[in-house]
């Protein structure tokens, strides 16, 4: 037993130093991107450990508030109520936009729907339209595949359309599960980040171009439209951090802005900020 304790002391407290780690938490949309960045970062600068977790934007911001994260990834801007909590605890924070994202509305490729208006999207998501019959003529109930309430995507869609989701909407654990479900569900209707339906991932799916009011329908995969900010469901991806931690996380933020970083962002299906 004494031997074990000694081993513990040597192995743990011998090399314990908190400064060597950056904890990144938050948005499910951004998590894969953050993993890729962390991976590459390790090759170029192996001195600094980076641990990455997803779970949703709310989780990231809460973790930042609770002191369990150094960088909170968030696919929405911070809420007033959250800001208040930071103020109450006298924590000063700052943000950094590192990419742009577009939300894609997705159905099975078997659907005859070719484009969709924001108004129709609202009606489906609130549960007002429960059947496809009024949209495609097929008599089939609509199954909504959405995200859990801790997801930034969920909040974003809810806020921008000013709706409350139907309680029957499936709350999936992540973008990936939604795609998985939609591929086999001809009655499904879901929303995911455009980054998730790029290239090979959209097999079996149809990504609906969206129009708002009288505008023309725009696809979330249209790079130029995103760059000029024309797509209705597009948003900046934020990283929030405590001001006191800036020096610690600076090398990583700089890496994200570097050429290598921008390349990774682009390859992952997001739009680097400087495109605008």
């Amino acid at each position, binding site marked *: 037993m004494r031997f074990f304790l000694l081993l513990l002391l040597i192995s743990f407290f011998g090399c314990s130093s908190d400064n060597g780690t950056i904890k990144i938490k938050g948005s499910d949309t951004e998590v894969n991107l953050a993993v890729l960045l962390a991976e590459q970062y390790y090759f170029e600068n192996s001195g600094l450990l980076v641990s990455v*977790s997803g779970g949703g934007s709310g989780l990231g911001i809460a973790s930042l508030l609770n002191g369990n994260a150094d960088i909170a990834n968030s696919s929405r801007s911070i809420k007033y109520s959250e800001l208040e909590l930071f103020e109450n605890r006298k924590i000063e924070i700052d943000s950094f936009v590192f990419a742009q994202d577009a939300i894609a509305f997705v159905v099975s490729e078997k659907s005859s729907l070719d484009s969709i208006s924001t108004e129709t999207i609202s009606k489906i998501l609130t549960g007002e339209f429960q059947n496809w019959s009024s949209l495609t003529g097929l008599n089939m109930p609509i199954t909504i595949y959405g995200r859990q309430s801790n997801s930034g995507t969920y909040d974003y869609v809810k806020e921008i359309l000013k709706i409350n989701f139907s309680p029957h909407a499936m709350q999936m654990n992540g973008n990936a599960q939604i795609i998985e479900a939609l591929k086999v569900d001809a009655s499904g209707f879901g929303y995911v980040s455009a980054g998730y339906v790029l290239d090979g991932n959209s097999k079996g799916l149809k990504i609906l171009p969206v129009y708002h009011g009288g505008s023309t329908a725009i696809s979330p995969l249209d790079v130029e439209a995103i760059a000029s900010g024309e797509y209705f469901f597009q948003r900046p991806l934020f990283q929030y951090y405590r001001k006191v931690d800036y020096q610690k996380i600076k090398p990583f933020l700089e890496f994200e802005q570097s050429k290598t970083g921008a390349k990774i962002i682009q390859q992952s299906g997001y739009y680097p900020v400087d495109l605008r």
Partner: protein
Amino acid sequence: MEKKRIIGLFSGLVLGGSTLIVVLFLGIILWDIFSKGFPSLSWNFVSSFPTNGMTQGGILPAIIGTVLLTFITTLFSVPFGVACAIYLNEYARPNTLTNVIRASIRNLAGVPSIIYGLFGLALFVQALNFGTSILSAGLTLGLLSLPYIITTTEEALKRIPNSLREAALALGVTQFETIKDVVLPKALPGILTGVILTLSRAAGETAPILFTGVAFFINGISASPNQEFMALPYHLYMLSTQHNEIEQVRPLAYATASVLILLVFLLNIIAFYVRFKNRTQD
């Protein structure tokens, strides 16, 4: 008479059939996971880092994380659990209070694991300010393991006949020496079996570590206790529900599940071996 024979046959079929179904459950689980997991298993898989956004490469950090985590769990739960059992069985007077304590401990073994997670969050992450770290998670799993270790250790101690203790004490040996030289050596195999089985449970737990320190991905290995970590069961959860290229990583998820199950079975086989050896010696 004919009717009775038919009823007999039917009952036999129902009972035998039920047993067959239970066995089939295990068969299906193992067959599905192993047949799809083994093709992706390789030395490279268990010895390298995940690469390319966790769509390729191995699960080395998750294996190391699970081993370190279980190590912390052991360091915390085994000494305290065994000491607590020794206190209850050897020192404490058998009165109502002791019985209440014993009953509480037994029932704590039935408390849902996620509640231990909440407690770990409130105590280790917040109150003791360990943050989300492998230390907090290991201690949380340690708490979860304590009731099992205490109960199994006490059972092992109870099996030692009192005549042995009395004989030792009559020789003028102190109580501690009796415990150390007579009781513990005799009870060791029983205690060991319980400990290993408990640890195999702890190693496969996911819920208690969800918010006490586990991470999706870590880009290097560090043995620091205030580090976040990757763990096999959480890695499987993440690959099967959270990853963005779920189909591409399915084989990795299957292979991770295979490694996790093999690890747990290995621990169980060791425990059975200890128990078996002990039985044949008696």
